[in-house]
C-alpha cells in the first residue's frame, strides 16, 4: 500500500534511500494524490535520491513556494479590503502556517484563502469583499440557503481577476454540528503573523485542524490534515513545556476534546508525534482505541497507482461526515438534493 509507504517516508525520511523504482512510483503517486508531494520533498531533502526523483521533488517544492507566495498575497488583498471596517484579518489553515512561518507550512499545498471574521461583521464583510472584486462562485438557491442557514461560512467567493477563492468563516464548525466552539474566543486570542495578518493561537490551530479533519470532514486529504496536526503539535511542544495540557484545557473549552484526542492518537501512531501523556491534573494516554483502527484503514486506503481503495470504507466516512454535521432528517434531505444533481463522493 503506497499510503503506508508515504507515512513511513514522512516519519523516517532515511528509509527512502532503500526504495526500488516501483516503490518510488507508488510513493510519488500517493504523495501527489494526498497533496503531500512537496512536504515529502522537504522531508527527504539531503537524502540520497535516485536521479529521476530529484526534478520531480524540485518541481513540487517550487509549486509549493509559489502557492505560499500567492496565498500570502490573497491574504494581503483581503486585509486591504477589510481594513476600512476595522476587522482584523485572521487567516486559517495553510495560509496561516505560511504567514506564521511554521513547519506545517513547509511544502504545504494551499488552496483557497480561509478567513475567520466575527459573525456580527459578516454583513459588512460580504459587501466589502465584493467591492474589492470578489464575487459568488455560483448562483444556486439551495446551496445558498444551505450555507446561510446551516454552515459556518459564506458560500465560496472567487476573485474576478485573480481567480482565487476565499472562504469566509464565522466559526470553525457548521452550526448544525454538535460541538460548539467559542468563535469569539478564537478571535480574541488570535496572534499577529506579519503586519496585517493574524492567525489562531498555537492551541487553537491544533484544535481547528482536528475539528476540520474529524468533526467536519470525510477524511479526504486526511493524511495531510494529520501531518498539519503532527507539525503543529511538535512545534508547539518544543516552544511550551506543558503545551499538551494547555491544548486539552482549550479543547475542553471548545467542546472538542474527542476530536483533538483522537487526532493526537492517530498522529502519534502514524507519524510518531511526540505527544505527552498525563496522570495529573488530567488523565490522558494515547493507546489506540478500536475505532481508531478504522480511521487508520481509511487514511491508508491508497494503492500503488494513487487510487483510493476500500470504496465502502471511503463511502462510510462520507456518510459519517454528513452525520456529524447534521441531524438525520436534514442529512437525508441534503444527500438527496446533492445526489439528484449527480454529486457522488470521489
Amino acid at each position, binding site marked *: 500500500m503506497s499510503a503506508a509507504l508515504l507515512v513511513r517516508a514522512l516519519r523516517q525520511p532515511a528509509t527512502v534511500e532503500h526504495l526500488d*523504482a516501483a516503490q518510488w512510483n507508488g510513493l510519488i503517486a500517493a504523495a501527489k494524490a494526498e497533496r503531500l508531494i512537496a512536504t515529502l520533498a522537504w522531508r527527504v531533502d539531503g537524502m540520497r535520491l535516485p536521479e529521476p526523483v530529484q526534478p520531480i521533488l524540485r518541481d513540487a517544492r517550487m509549486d509549493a513556494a509559489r502557492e505560499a507566495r500567492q496565498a500570502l498575497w490573497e491574504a494581503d488583498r483581503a486585509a486591504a479590503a477589510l481594513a476600512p471596517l476595522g476587522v482584523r484579518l485572521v487567516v486559517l489553515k495553510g495560509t496561516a502556517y505560511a504567514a506564521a512561518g511554521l513547519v506545517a507550512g513547509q511544502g504545504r499545498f494551499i488552496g483557497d484563502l480561509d478567513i475567520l471574521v466575527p459573525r456580527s461583521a459578516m454583513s459588512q464583510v460580504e459587501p466589502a469583499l465584493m467591492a474589492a472584486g470578489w464575487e459568488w462562485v455560483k448562483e444556486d438557491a439551495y446551496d445558498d440557503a444551505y450555507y446561510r442557514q446551516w454552515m459556518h461560512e459564506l458560500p465560496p467567493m472567487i476573485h474576478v481577476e485573480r481567480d482565487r477563492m476565499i472562504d469566509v468563516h464565522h466559526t470553525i464548525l457548521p452550526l448544525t454540528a454538535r460541538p460548539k466552539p467559542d468563535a469569539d474566543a478564537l478571535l480574541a486570542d488570535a496572534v499577529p503573523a506579519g503586519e496585517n495578518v493574524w492567525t489562531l493561537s498555537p492551541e487553537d490551530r491544533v484544535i481547528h485542524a482536528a475539528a476540520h479533519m474529524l468533526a467536519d470532514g470525510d477524511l479526504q486529504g486526511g493524511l495531510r490534515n494529520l501531518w498539519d496536526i503532527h507539525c503543529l503539535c511538535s512545534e508547539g511542544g518544543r516552544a511550551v513545556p506543558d503545551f499538551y495540557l494547555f491544548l486539552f484545557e482549550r479543547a475542553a473549552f471548545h467542546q472538542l476534546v474527542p476530536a483533538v484526542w483522537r487526532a493526537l492518537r492517530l498522529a502519534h501512531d502514524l507519524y510518531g508525534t511526540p505527544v505527552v501523556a498525563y496522570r495529573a491534573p488530567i488523565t490522558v494516554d494515547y493507546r489506540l482505541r478500536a475505532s481508531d483502527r478504522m480511521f487508520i484503514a481509511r487514511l491508508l486506503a491508497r494503492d500503488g497507482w494513487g487510487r483510493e481503495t476500500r470504496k465502502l470504507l471511503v463511502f462510510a466516512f462520507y456518510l459519517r461526515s454528513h452525520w456529524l454535521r447534521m441531524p438525520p432528517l436534514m442529512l437525508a434531505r441534503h444527500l438527496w438534493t446533492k445526489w439528484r444533481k449527480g454529486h457522488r463522493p470521489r
Partner: protein
Amino acid sequence: MRHSLTLQIGPATFRIGSAWRQPVEELTRLYAGYPDRHDAIADFTVRLQPTGPLRRWVRPSILITGDHGLADAAPMSLAHGLLAAEMGMNLQMALGWRRHLLLHASSVEKDGRALVMTGESGSGKSTLAALLGERGWRLMGDEFALLDLDSGAILPFPRLVSLKNQAIGVVEDVVGAQRMGPMLQATAKGDIRHLVPRPDAVARMAQGAMPAMLLFPRFGHDAAIRPVGQGEAFMRLTQASTNYVALGEPGFAALTRFVTDVPACAMDFPSGEAAFDMIDRLWEDGA
C-alpha cells in the same frame, strides 16, 4: 493496474496503467521506436480506469485520470482507448510540467533553428508540422513546444501526431498506412488518426534548437501574411501556455526573451502547397 507501460517522450516519462489490454497494446505498437523505459521512475502516472464498478466489461467506459485529472472530464469508449491514453499524457503535461515553459504549439527544425507554430484547434498547426516533417524539416512536436527557461531553446516533445478529419487523408497519402495508427471514428473532435513521427525525430528527441520564427497559421483563408507585434505575440503565447503562471518570474523572463528575440507573423493559407511556399519565403527572408 492490470496492464501498464512506461513511455518516454522528450524529457518526460509517463507510467500508464489501464484496466484494459487494448490501449496498452496499441501504445506498445505505435511507440515501439521510442526508448524502452520499462521499470523507470516516471514523472507522471496516467490511469485509464472504468468510470464505475461494472464499466470494465459492460459498455466499457474509460475515465482518464492520474496525478492530475479534470473533475468534469468526459468518459470515453474503449474503442477510443488510444486517444484516451494520449489525452491522459497531455493532461499530465499541461497541468503538471514545470521544467520548461509549455507552449501549445507545434514545432519543426531545420539547420539547427526552430519554427514554432501556434494557434487554436483547426488552425492547421499539427498538419503543417506533420507535412513539413516529411519535407526536409525535423518534426519536434505537434502539440507542445517546450521553451527552455535558461537557454531559450525549444525542446522537442515528439509524441504521436494527432490528425483530425480531412488532414488524415492528406497525410496518409504522403507517409503511407504503415506509420498510421488505427482510425478512431466519431470522437468528440471528429475522426482522429495518429501518425508515428519519423525515426530521426524520435532519435533526436533530446536535441533542442533555438527558435528563429513564430507563426500563427490559420487554415482556410486567402493567403495573407502580417507581422505580429511583440505585445500581441506575448499575449497570445500566455494564452497558449498552460504553465506560464505556475512558473512565475522565470516564465516571465523566458517568454519576454522569446517575443523580443523571435520575429512573429500571422499566416493565413488556403492549402498545404500555398503554406509551404509562404513558409519557405518567410524562412529565407526573416529567420
